[in-house]
């Protein structure tokens, strides 16, 4: 059964190849079967393997399958090896299942697009690359998948390439993440140099013996890896690409920029947790980055008026939570939040897609309203997702995962009150912007009339995801609310648990505080955006709030800052050095050789007999050297 693991990434790749090379000649119906079918098959295999993993785990909770030897040079040997452990099982299941649902949804969403087969080809390639990323046993396979998803991200953001700004957004995403990728690559080189291997288990086993806690090499490696993770997961300071990435089709946003790819950074840090455990400074930095990002992004989300951009900032913010969890050493909590977030964020994006689709590509929430009655299926599922995102207590998955993170931030030995406070404030803001969105879009007077209702191919995935968003949290509940620890005990075989445990009373108190924050946020949203909407608008029109709003709308002006800091100086430097100063040397060489050539070509008279005389003279000279030596 485990030996079938190679099928999981291969099937989407096969789907990609089929669609890429034969897609043009296939009818849409066939494309609609092949695209989701490939991911569905992959999901089925993954679930079967996971079932067996739960029922009869392999020895040491890890299974390796070497497909072939990739590189074998000198001291370095890298196999094309897949690796199955609880961490990759969780990641693989979420990717394939959510991916499959999004594929099904996309068959309807993209129905009228001319690049139908191209779209599914890219999507399949993405799923395959992502699976390679999480199933790779060594860092090289991981890096292959890492770059593969980056490529797909680029291709899919710029999918509607005929609009120049979409292409620009794609390039921005690619270039910004590249900064992180370079850091990651350097990190990999460092690890190769240090350990002579790229096999993750071997590195994790060798690291504690090789490096003392806080050793410079460990810190450097951890920081470089963190650079990669920050780029991929859109954390400070490389978060600017994600909001622009919303230029791609909505299923892409749901799959890549919410549910799966952006969590690659989280996965990377969790996978190499032993390295970060050796670098407490870097780990603390992870937490601080997470906390800062979640607050900045949450504030930005408050000011957005584009539905997808709100969700994009929300994604950045939630990824900040995951980084916060990683930063305080709560690996399991981060993964738990990854899972629930994948469910509800995919759900929200797909719901948003359904809304945008039926409103004929209207994305401004201020031009929406009253869609509750016109799109009931979308409303109820979207509401479920919104509640999960806002972490509404008891009934949603988001509550349990976010609560775990906040609790960990308080009690963890590496955590502190500030991080907890940031998380709590974030929870309040999350509830506020989430329900601002819900109230503006679904309640109030109708502003734009929708056209028709989404079909079953769109609503069924929504409902499944809604169920998962509500019920997915019950695999891990706090001690006072049932004390289920299925998730953490399963992952405990791959990741160390949290060292500290707080008292039940403390836990209850913290839960109460976060509940208050969430409910307060929802109530404030209700007041501001449903009951006293005009008053809010009037207040926002004043100079000071308006300036703040515009700052937030621009995502704290990071784009402006980077433009001034990096882009313009670079462009200036390039302009100044238009006639490459280094080139002058080579141009001089060329000119010198040209001159020399001109001189030599004078010797070439075209007169055959003079050449013969030249030969004879040359022979004479050579012989003279021999004779008179």
């Amino acid at each position, binding site marked *: 059964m485990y030996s079938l693991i190679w099928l999981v990434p291969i099937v989407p790749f096969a789907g990609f190849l089929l669609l890429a090379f034969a897609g043009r000649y296939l009818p849409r119906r066939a494309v609609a079967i092949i695209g989701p079918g490939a991911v569905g098959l992959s999901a089925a295999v993954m679930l079967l393997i996971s079932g067996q993993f739960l029922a009869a785990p392999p020895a040491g909770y890890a299974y390796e399958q070497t497909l072939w030897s990739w590189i074998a040079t000198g001291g370095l040997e890298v196999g094309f090896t897949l690796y199955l452990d609880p961490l990759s099982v969780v990641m693989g299941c979420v990717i394939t299942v959510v991916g499959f649902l999004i594929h099904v949804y996309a068959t309807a969403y993209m129905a009228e697009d001319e690049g139908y087969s191209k779209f599914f080809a890219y999507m399949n390639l993405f799923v395959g690359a992502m699976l390679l990323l999480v199933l790779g046993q060594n860092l090289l396979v991981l890096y292959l998948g890492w770059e593969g998803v980056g490529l797909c991200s680029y291709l899919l953001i710029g999918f509607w390439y005929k609009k120049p700004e979409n292409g620009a957004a794609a390039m921005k995403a690619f270039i910004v993440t590249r900064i992180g990728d370079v850091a990651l690559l350097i990190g990999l080189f460092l690890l190769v140099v240090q350990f002579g291997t790229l096999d993750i288990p071997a590195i994790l086993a060798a690291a504690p013996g090789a490096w003392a806690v806080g050793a410079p090499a460990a810190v450097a490696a951890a920081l470089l890896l963190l650079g990669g993770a920050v780029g991929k997961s859109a954390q400070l300071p490389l978060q600017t690409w994600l909001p622009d990435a919303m230029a791609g089709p909505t299923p892409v946003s749901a799959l890549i920029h919410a549910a799966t790819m952006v969590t690659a950074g989280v996965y990377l840090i969790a996978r190499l947790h032993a390295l970060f455990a050796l670098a407490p400074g870097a780990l603390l930095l992870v937490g601080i980055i997470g906390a800062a990002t979640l607050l900045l992004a949450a504030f930005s989300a408050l000011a957005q008026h584009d539905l997808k951009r709100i969700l994009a900032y929300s994604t950045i913010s939630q990824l900040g939570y995951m980084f916060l969890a990683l930063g305080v050493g709560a690996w399991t909590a981060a993964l738990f939040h990854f899972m629930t977030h994948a469910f509800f964020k995919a759900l929200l994006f797909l719901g948003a897609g359904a809304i945008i689709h039926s409103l004929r590509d209207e994305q401004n929430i201020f031009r929406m309203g009253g869609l509750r009655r016109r799109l009931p299926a979308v409303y109820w599922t979207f509401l479920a997702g919104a509640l999960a995102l806002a972490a509404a207590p008891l009934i949603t998955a988001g509550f349990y995962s976010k609560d775990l993170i906040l609790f960990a931030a308080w009690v963890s030995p590496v955590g502190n009150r500030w991080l907890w406070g940031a998380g709590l404030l974030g929870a309040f803001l999350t509830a506020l912007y989430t329900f601002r969105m819900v109230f503006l879009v679904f309640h109030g007077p109708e502003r734009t009339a929708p056209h028709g209702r989404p079909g079953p191919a769109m609503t069924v995935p929504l409902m499944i995801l809604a169920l998962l968003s509500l019920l997915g949290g019950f695999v891990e509940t706090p001690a006072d609310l049932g004390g289920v620890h299925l998730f953490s005990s399963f992952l405990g075989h791959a990741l160390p648990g949290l060292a500290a445990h707080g008292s039940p009373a403390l836990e209850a108190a913290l839960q109460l505080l976060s509940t208050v924050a969430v409910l307060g946020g929802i109530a404030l949203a209700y007041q501001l955006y449903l009951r006293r909407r005009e008053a809010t608008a009037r207040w926002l029109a004043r100079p000071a709030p308006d300036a703040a709003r515009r700052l937030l709308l621009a995502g704290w002006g990071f784009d402006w800052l980077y433009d001034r800091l990096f882009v313009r100086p670079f462009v200036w430097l390039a302009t100044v050095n238009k006639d490459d100063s280094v080139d002058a040397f080579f141009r001089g060489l060329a000119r010198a050789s040209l001159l020399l050539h001109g001189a030599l070509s004078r010797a070439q008279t075209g007169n055959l007999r003079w050449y013969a*005389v030249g030969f*004879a*003279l040359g*022979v*004479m000279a050579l*012989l*003279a050297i*021999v*004779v008179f030596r």
Partner: protein
Amino acid sequence: MTIVFYLSAAVAVIATVLVITRLNAVHALLHLIVSLLAIAVIFFTLGAPFVAALEVIIYAGAIMVLFVFVIMMLNLGPHAAEAERRWLDPAIWVGPGILALILAGEVGYLILRGAAGTTGAAIVGPQTVGVSLFTTYMLGVELASLVLLAGLVGAYHLGRRRGAGEDGEGERTNG
């Protein structure tokens, strides 16, 4: 037999001198053939009968015939000899002659510097040459065949009549 060698050598040198001084191309060619035949005799006396035969068959019998053929095609008659007379100003011989003399001095010095033994140790027949050719020098044979093929292709290409446009040959010869 040594006398044969020296006689042939004298014939070869004289014939060659005549080759480079004749005005008429066919006469020069005939002298060259005489020179080649003399050298073939030298080969024979040096114990290389196979090569001697090849010298006559291929050098004199095929390559030189090609020259005759071309000279005949170009129809180089008395007017060509007249042009040669104009071109061959006696003064023109001085420079190359001096150069050749210097070279001859150098080469002669190098050759005569040490005693190296005598030739004609044994007759090396065709079979020995063939065995050597197809074992030790197999690669050389392959390369030589490649050179010949290239020559064939090149000569064919050059000999082919071009279409109109290059220098107007096309209009005249369409057959």
